[in-house]
């Protein structure tokens, strides 16, 4: 039998009004990849952030190899054998690769108060060689490397000292297939050395494929721990949501003809350094997907259509000949946009749900033609569309910052549904959103499509593109690299072959 590495005992944590974790207890063994799953806000990241010293602990105990631990910060956590690789960038700009790898652990290169940079670089280079990342040089500034390489450097940083537990927190969502393979390789190595990986991901097939044991959390409460080989995706969904996920998840129709009517044309659009010479048409009532790697330029397509790109060349033209060159014109002409960077670009966090929903519609919520706002209508308007999107809230005065990711996205969508937008540009509409809300969003898109609205869906999740789109355009290095039509035979491999 495998030995217990970490005992989680009665861990609780609150953030203001939210109880992130309640009395959670379970065991994690040596030599396993232990997945933590749950919907957004279920407490996975809160748990690992406390374990790695990012958040202070509240009540309860972590017992590592029989000893109770109290991680104070990340460096302290490293010293007791716990490290983490995070979802977003975990390396610091302005430092060299070596300085990043040994951040907080410089003492072994210090003699008489001076840092021996040469020795540090040599050691870092040796590690990079050992990991097989030979194209990275220890003495280079970290800024010379792209997102993908910086993640590889983080892998070295988090694992070179053979920690007892490595937390991989939703790292894979930000990585390409190659990067993921590299990460999996090192996860397996850690396990084979007898150490433990705590693996957090939203991708259930990845979880089933890569982990040995799975612990499920729901609303901060421990639900169950299962062996990966004993369960399938449906079982996991049921455990996460707490009930059977019924009805259609994606669209179920095939073979519907795309309308000939073009509602929007993108002609020779170039954004220097990001996309070059992109042209395509959007038809009425179609869902047009854009797929590719995160850096392929596909996210800029959304901004370009919405008039939000800097230095855009080329034309974005509506059916009636209107040119879209700025955000105000885009909104006035019934174009809606949800950004991948939801918290910064889609929504004003420290403002009420009501103010967020009515923002683009204020011109229509005045007394007649006067500039004076009709607050009664504004309140009704916000209430109506928040309700239509079934936003989970106390009332529309509640600040958006108190909502979960899924509910924030619902507020964004409520704003555009309220504006009655005809062209919706949805960039990563389900990013970091749990299954239940995802399903709601897919159903909404399908309904809008049937009402004759046109949707552009930009996504890094190939499965949802395959499930939802009439057409999918693939992108690579800022250029269009292929196009496929909706069909039941379409699979991820086909799309990947066009985008890498």
């Amino acid at each position, binding site marked *: 039998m495998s030995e217990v590495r970490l005992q989680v005992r009665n861990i609780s944590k609150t953030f203001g009004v939210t*109880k992130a974790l309640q009395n959670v207890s379970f065991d994690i063994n040596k030599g396993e990849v232990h997945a933590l799953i749950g919907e957004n806000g279920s407490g996975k990241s809160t748990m690992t952030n406390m374990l790695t010293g990012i958040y202070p602990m509240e*009540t309860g105990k972590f017992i590592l190899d029989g000893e109770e631990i109290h991680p104070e910060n990340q460096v302290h956590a490293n010293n007791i054998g716990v490290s983490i690789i995070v979802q977003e960038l975990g390396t610091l700009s302005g430092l060299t690769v070596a300085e990043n790898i040994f951040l907080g652990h410089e003492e072994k290169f210090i003699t008489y108060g001076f840092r021996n940079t040469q020795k540090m670089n040599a050691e870092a280079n040796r590690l990079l060689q050992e990991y097989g990342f030979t194209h990275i040089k220890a003495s280079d500034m970290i800024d010379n490397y792209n997102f993908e390489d910086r993640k590889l450097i983080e892998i070295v940083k988090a694992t070179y000292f053979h920690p007892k537990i490595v937390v991989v927190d939703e790292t894979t969502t930000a990585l390409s297939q190659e990067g993921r393979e590299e990460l999996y390789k090192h996860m397996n190595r850690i396990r084979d050395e007898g150490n433990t990986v705590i693996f957090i991901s939203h991708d259930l097939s990845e979880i089933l494929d890569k982990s040995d044991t799975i612990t499920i959390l729901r609303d901060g409460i421990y639900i169950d721990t299962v062996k990966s080989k004993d369960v399938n995706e449906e079982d996991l969904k049921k455990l996460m949501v707490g009930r059977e996920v019924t009805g259609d998840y994606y669209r179920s129709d095939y073979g519907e003809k795309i309308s000939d009517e073009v509602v929007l044309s993108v002609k020779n659009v170039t954004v220097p350094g990001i996309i070059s010479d992109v042209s395509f048409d959007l038809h009425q009532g179609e869902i047009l997907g854009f797929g590719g790697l995160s850096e392929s330029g596909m996210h800029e397509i959304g901004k370009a259509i*919405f008039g939000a790109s800097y230095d855009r060349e080329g034309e974005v033209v509506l059916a009636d000949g209107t040119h879209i060159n700025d955000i105000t014109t885009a909104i006035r002409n019934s174009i809606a946009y949800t950004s991948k960077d939801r918290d910064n670009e889609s*929504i*004003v966090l*420290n*403002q009420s749900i009501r103010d967020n929903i009515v*923002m*683009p519609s204020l011109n229509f919520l005045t007394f007649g033609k006067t500039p004076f*706002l009709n607050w009664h209508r504004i309140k009704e308007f916000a209430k109506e569309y928040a309700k239509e999107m079934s936003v989970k809230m106390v009332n529309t005065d509640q600040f958006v910052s108190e909502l979960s990711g899924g509910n924030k996205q619902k507020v964004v969508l409520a704003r555009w549904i309220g504006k009655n937008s005809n062209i919706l540009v949805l960039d990563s509409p389900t990013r970091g959103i749990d299954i239940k809300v995802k399903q709601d969003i897919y159903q909404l898109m399908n309904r809008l499509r049937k009402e004759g609205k046109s949707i552009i869906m930009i996504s890094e999740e190939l499965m949802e593109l395959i499930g939802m789109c009439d057409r999918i355009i693939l992108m690579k290095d800022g250029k269009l690299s292929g196009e496929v039509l909706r069909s039941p035979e379409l699979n991820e491999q086909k799309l990947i072959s066009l985008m890498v």
Partner: protein
Amino acid sequence: MTDVTISKEQALAKERKMRLIRAWLPVAGLIFVFILFSFLTNGRLIKSLPLAMSQVYVIMIASMGVFFIMTMGGLDFSQGSILGLSAIVVCYVSKYNIELAIVAGMATGACIGAINGYFYVNRKIKSFIVTICTMFLFRGLIKYLTTNAPVAGSPMIVMWDTTAFKVGSTLVVIILGFLAFNYTKFGTYLRAIGAGEKAAMFGGIKTDRVKFLVYVLSGAITGFAAFISAIKVGSVTSNGGNQLETQILIALVLGGMPISGGALARFSNVIVGSLLFVVLSSGLTMMGFSTQMMQLIEGVVFLLFVAIFADRKSIHVIK
């Protein structure tokens, strides 16, 4: 364990209570300070109230402009210099026509506001840096213009110094500001920019234009305050408007304005804050405190209120 498992309702109730305290503390403070000083000065405060109120007009009008700026997350330290320079222009022009002098004062303020706005919006420099620069620059100009003697206006200008005019015009300005802030898009846009500029832009607000125009507007408003300040004595010295920016900042914070601006800004902050500030400072004067001592006390109160009203949820840096 017990303290961890507080229910969501309790926590929300607690937060609502905090919001209520934040909303009413300035009002309670105003009443308290008023009663306290009336008592301490044996009622002299109430008797000399009309005199004390003569300070309110300038501060209340000027702080309304800064209130707009702070709501959208900016700051303005150049208010004192705007007031000083505008007052000089008012005095010059008043020799020809006094109504024209009002317009000229506002135009001067608007121009300085436009300079602030240009460097803030187009050159993308943080607002407090820009306005500290313009504060120095225009204070220098004021000193140069008043090198030999204070700039005197037309002798007729003091004729305008009537309570009816001052109360009337202050009321008009405040009511216009109140309507614009609470009953037009203007206020909603300012709050949105203060709470999340990028998201406001993606929500269809022309953020750069609004930001620029707010600085121009605030300059013009202070330019009008300069007229009210000029009619009191009919001339401007090199110290005209000195430290107005700090007084405004203290007044707004005393009124409950979060220093980082955003959605928690309320229009009542302007009115309650400037009244509280004026009662506090005239009360302290009447009690015979020296200027140095007063500054010390005001500083402590300022710090206290900043700490209470800081909106720690919006961690963003002041723009």
